[in-house]
């Protein structure tokens, strides 16, 4: 399974660290989470197999090296094999040192861009006037477009009240169906969420905050985040034993640990607020909340940062029309 492959009109994109994380944690049974930074031959071999299998129309490939700081020896052979099959390869965010170790530095292209010790672009071919060198590559945009076009398929007309807030929704995002049908993109999204969590709470992560799941979908997400971030979890079942039995919440929530609430989609955040209030009422400390998708109902400047949901995709003013997603009330517009 390759999770990060994104096929665009002009190139095929692969995120090598994301693939390494899947390979080492799920195929090779390493327990390094997202903290490993060494690319293994078996990972690049799996990508090479995928390229052979798919026979893409585009012959341009982007390998994103972000977070890869070392490589298994002789790994360059597989990359060169792909190149020898007629593919034009662009390496992005690769360190100069790694380029040298892989003996790629002998390939010169005047479009290569070095910023500090990092090549933001390193072309594995010497023709400086190839069309590929004119294409702008922004991994965040590539992911955004891919996610947007995919999630669109799972947004259905709704027009019923929101399940936990007193508003109407024009549409409903069927996250469960998305998770079932788009497993690769789901895993890439959870990987990206894990990176965001690690970046946002760099210091707190060391003290092992606890990931809270509070829905069936978030249970699956939390299970994977626990592997990626090496964190404990807590099942916060609204109607289950945790709230009813032995006042167990009291015993489960510790004032010495911090908590991160994990959701699949945060619309108005009502459910998150309920969970957060319960945790704080018991004396727990809520670090924040994360979600795959959030709805930005306020302008950025109006959001209180500490309450903001960390997500890998936002439904917002710039895309809600395209996604056919809106929130409204029964009140008459003034």
């Amino acid at each position, binding site marked *: *399974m390759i999770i990060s492959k994104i096929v665009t009109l002009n190139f095929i994109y692969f995120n090598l660290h994301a693939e390494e994380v*899947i390979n*080492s944690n*799920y*195929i*090779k*049974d*390493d*327990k*390094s989470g997202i903290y490993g930074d060494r690319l*293994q*031959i*078996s990972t690049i071999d799996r990508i090479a197999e995928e390229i052979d299998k798919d026979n893409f129309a585009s012959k341009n490939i982007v390998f994103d090296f972000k977070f890869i700081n070392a490589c*298994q020896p002789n790994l360059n052979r597989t990359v060169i094999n792909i190149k020898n099959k007629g593919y034009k390869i662009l390496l992005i965010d690769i360190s100069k040192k790694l380029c040298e170790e892989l003996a790629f530095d002998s390939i010169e292209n005047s479009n290569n861009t070095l910023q500090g010790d990092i090549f933001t672009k390193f072309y594995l071919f010497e023709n400086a006037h190839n069309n590929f060198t004119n294409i702008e590559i922004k991994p965040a945009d590539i992911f955004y477009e891919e996610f947007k076009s995919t999630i669109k398929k799972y947004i259905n007309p709704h027009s019923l009240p929101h*399940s936990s807030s007193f508003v109407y929704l024009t549409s*409903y995002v*069927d*996250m*469960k*169906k998305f*998770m*079932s*049908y788009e*497993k690769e993109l789901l*895993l890439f999204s959870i990987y990206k969420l894990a990176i965001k969590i690690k970046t946002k709470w760099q210091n707190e992560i060391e003290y092992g905050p*606890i990931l809270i*799941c509070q*829905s*069936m*979908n978030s*249970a*699956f997400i*939390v*299970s*994977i985040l*626990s*592997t990626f971030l*090496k*964190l*404990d*979890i*807590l*099942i916060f*079942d609204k*109607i*289950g*034993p*945790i709230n*009813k*039995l*032995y006042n167990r919440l009291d015993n*489960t929530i510790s004032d010495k640990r911090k908590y991160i609430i994990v959701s699949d989609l945060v619309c108005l955040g009502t459910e998150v607020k309920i969970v957060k209030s319960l945790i704080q009422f018991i004396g727990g400390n809520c670090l924040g909340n994360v979600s795959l998708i959030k709805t930005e109902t306020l302008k950025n400047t109006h959001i209180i940062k500490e309450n903001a949901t960390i997500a890998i995709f936002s439904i917002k003013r710039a895309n809600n029309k395209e996604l056919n997603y809106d929130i409204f009330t029964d009140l008459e517009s003034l």
Partner: protein
Amino acid sequence: MSKVIIHISDLHVTTHTKSNGEINQNIESHLDTNSDNASSNHYLKLFIDKVKEDFDKVEFILLVTGDITNSGEKIEFEFALNHINKIISGLNIKNKNILIIPGDHDVHRRSIENELEINPTNESHLLHSVKFSNFSSFYKNLTQREFPADKIIINHINIENKIILLGINSNYKINNEGGKGFIPIESFGRELVELKANLNIENLNYIACWHHNFTSGYEDKNNGQWEADNRIHLLAELERQNIKFVFTGNEHTSCFKKISSSSISTSDCGDFCSIKYDSTFKIYPIQIGSDITLKNIIYALQKPNGNDFKLFWDIRNNGAAKQPETIDLYIENTQLIKDVDDALPHTSVQDDNVKTEKRIEEKKFYDNQLISTKLYNIVKDKKLYHSGHFHWSETSRAHNWIDVSKLLENKEDLYFVKNAIIDVIETFNLNINCDLIVGLGYEGNIISSKASIKFNIPYTSLPYSYRYNDHDNYEKKLNFENNDGKYKKVIILTDVVNDGRTIRKLIAKRADDFFKSVTEIIVVSIFYTGHQEINTDILNYNMLPEDYDFENDHEVNNIEFYTVKSLRVERCPYKKNYKKECFIYKDDLSCVHLFYDEKK
């Protein structure tokens, strides 16, 4: 050139003259630090000559599994270096073919005590560089390599890309007061995975080599000289890493034993140079062909004590010593494809009766004692087995309950449980031709993630059938259509199964549109809490006991069931009259809990 492993251990090179000039009267080893090396040299020569006599034109690999010295003193290591170098030069052993592992007697306790005087700590076993200071110098001088005191895997020898001898340090918990064998599991697993990745060779046969015995040939106890809990975890990890053989020393007894309830065997070569007791070593000639095997040759020191010659080495009879002639690392199985095919349940309708009979005869069930024991220990340690009166539905009541959500909270326990599920699936090849995995409830969703990713099988989830009404509609949709019978084999993963009523309800009522075209329904659970003897058939309606309450149940007979651990809970004996007769419920005597919303 064929290759031969020489396995020696427990040399116990002992200080001959004490610091006050007194001769040590308690020397029990033929190898000591007497500046007149004549006796030690004679002993080594007997050994070298015998090996050379029996093995001509072979490449030797030398394995020394610890206790090279008696008390880790510098002088003992200086003489040990000299003694082992004689073996190396006498048998022309290449540097790359030497695997030396420390034992607890190679830990220098005085160095630890000195360090503690300056820097007191109650974790003196963690002073690795201090406790191995003398051993490290010896190791460097002998092998020209630095000794990695903080690592678990010290070194390895790759034998023709087929066998890996892993040198492992089992002295993690040894401190100035001694201690037992202990290997930190996570570090060991991580280092091994790294090594495997670096080697990047498929189908390697790993042999772990360390000092401490983890079963006994001499002492009448199963644990050997190993910390009990760590031993269970280690055995599970070895199983997981597919390591089937461990070469050890420490017990001063030549033996070969299979660890009960596991597929792991251990070979102890015995004490190399005991004056008082049995002295032995082993030689394992390697045979690599379509099969990969080691011959297990035991050499024992004969002590005729004649006036012309006192000692000689001779081969011991394996049969009489109750040890196998060969160690089978890999035996080509030409029946493999046929066996797998036979192991898969057959699906044709007309075979159903035959299939049922065959399964009963086979008594097929998951039986990895190491994994189920570890799971049970987590339940025990975390106190997750509760008593009270618990309801899962109007027809399902018990006086015990296992708190699985608490079990899954710790990341290590969660990792273990996910891998236990993987182990069940792999043991019975359940993933082959599987079309869909369904996780049940929050817990099922959590334990399923690894299986769904590792085997790359489509995945969805459903609520527990007794909680259906508590969930939103979108959570109750399976999202996969099966009108065309595309999904023939489905695995359902869940945390606990009792009598299977809720599973049958799910299949026959909640998601019957989908399941009516499914021919193989495999249910895998962490726990089975029911009362039947475990077998793959027990969740089928036709297999329910006569006294079962069949009311409101559903007739489903194509379920194949596997569980990691059977842990019975007691049913509430008052059946429908529980409200009047069950004193726990009636008088609120202990915890009374409903796992569903009665109002719905």
